[in-house]
């Protein structure tokens, strides 16, 4: 791929042309080739290897979560535009006939569906906090979890690095402010070294989440002023606006307060997470090293295939 003139659309077309991604008719939802999945799998092993000394507890949640949990988490305050709730039909035979009639007439039949108790998981760690809170007080040394989930964000785009359904791998540290910030610091270093070992250009910068609306501008400014979010950026679909492939977030005691995560002495827990955008890292590798993984630089291949 000609990296000098790449755009989001040309990158996407090139991924389709090389049978790395497959169209589905919806922007941001793509089929993945076997090779693409293999790259993700090997990158995941690399993450596992780097995180192994920390002995995290692994939990795999499905890509849907309790809607009540999403509501309580405050997600709708900050990101109503990204959330997705699952709706299903629960009517009788008459309603069914009406539904089919509306569908045949090209009318909006979705009003005959009702919200279920399931919402799509927007970030791998959202289902974790109530699960931890239900287990009682957090031990003095804190807790560390390793999570992986498909996540949904409603932001249709022809930028392949902005998918609507994508996988996020996360380590989540719950503990004192000092413990969780030390964890984040260690991953800022490990994450950068890891991406550099793959022969990818990157930089770490302070960042903010895409909070909704004008109030969101203030939330974003607050987040930046306090240095709560850092991102590791790699040029993927644009050189000027590199893509966040890893993010390092300090939540202060937000989730501690929301879910009553406390130590035995009653003091609130802080939390921090490091997230790996798995598709984004894979896209960065294909974008910089080319569509043929056998022809990737030996150093990057050694890290992914031989270790």
């Amino acid at each position, binding site marked *: 791929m000609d990296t000098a003139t790449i755009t989001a659309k040309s990158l996407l077309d090139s991924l389709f042309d090389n049978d790395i991604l497959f169209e589905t008719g919806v922007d941001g939802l793509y089929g993945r080739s076997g090779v693409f999945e293999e790259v993700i799998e090997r990158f995941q092993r690399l993450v596992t290897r780097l995180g192994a000394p920390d002995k995290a507890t692994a939990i795999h949640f499905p890509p849907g979560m309790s809607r009540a949990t999403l509501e309580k988490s405050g997600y709708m305050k900050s990101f109503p535009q990204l959330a997705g709730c699952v709706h299903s039909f629960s009517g009788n035979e008459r309603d069914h006939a009406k539904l089919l009639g509306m569908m045949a007439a090209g009318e909006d039949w979705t009003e005959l569906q009702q919200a279920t108790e399931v919402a799509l998981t927007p970030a791998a760690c959202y289902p974790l906090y109530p699960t931890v809170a239900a287990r009682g007080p957090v031990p003095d040394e804190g807790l560390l979890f390793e999570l992986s989930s498909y996540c949904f964000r409603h932001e249709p785009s022809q930028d392949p690095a902005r998918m609507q359904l994508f996988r996020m791998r996360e380590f989540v540290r719950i503990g004192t402010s000092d413990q969780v910030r030390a964890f984040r610091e260690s991953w800022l270093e490990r994450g950068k070294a890891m991406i550099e070992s793959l022969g990818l250009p990157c930089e770490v910068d302070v960042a903010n989440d895409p909070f909704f609306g004008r*109030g969101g501008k203030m939330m974003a400014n607050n987040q930046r*002023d306090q240095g709560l979010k850092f991102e590791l950026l790699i040029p993927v679909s644009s050189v000027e606006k590199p893509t966040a492939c890893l993010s390092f977030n300090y939540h202060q005691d937000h989730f501690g307060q929301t879910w009553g995560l406390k130590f035995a002495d009653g003091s609130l827990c802080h939390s921090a997470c490091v997230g790996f955008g798995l598709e984004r890292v894979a896209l960065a590798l294909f974008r910089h090293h080319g569509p043929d993984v056998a022809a990737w630089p030996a150093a990057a291949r050694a890290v992914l295939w031989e270790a």
Partner: protein
Amino acid sequence: MRLVKLEARRKMIDRIRSLFARNDALPFDIEKLSDQDNLYDAGMTSFASVQIMLAIEEEFDTEFPERMLTRRTFASVANIAEAVSQLTEQSN
């Protein structure tokens, strides 16, 4: 003249304080804080500050420009009053 201005300022601060008093998401009693006390230190979350921002816009029929949507603007009652007077003086 000066007294009139001070009186207007006091009234504005009272209106701002009443917005805090009406918000149940705040963990503090605004009556117990001075105009200079840091509201974030008192437990105001980012989201609560957004609610306050929107309430102030409604109360004073104004709109904060993006450059003013910062942590600093909403850090104390005095800072908010300063921002509101800048906005209302501009529009007068």
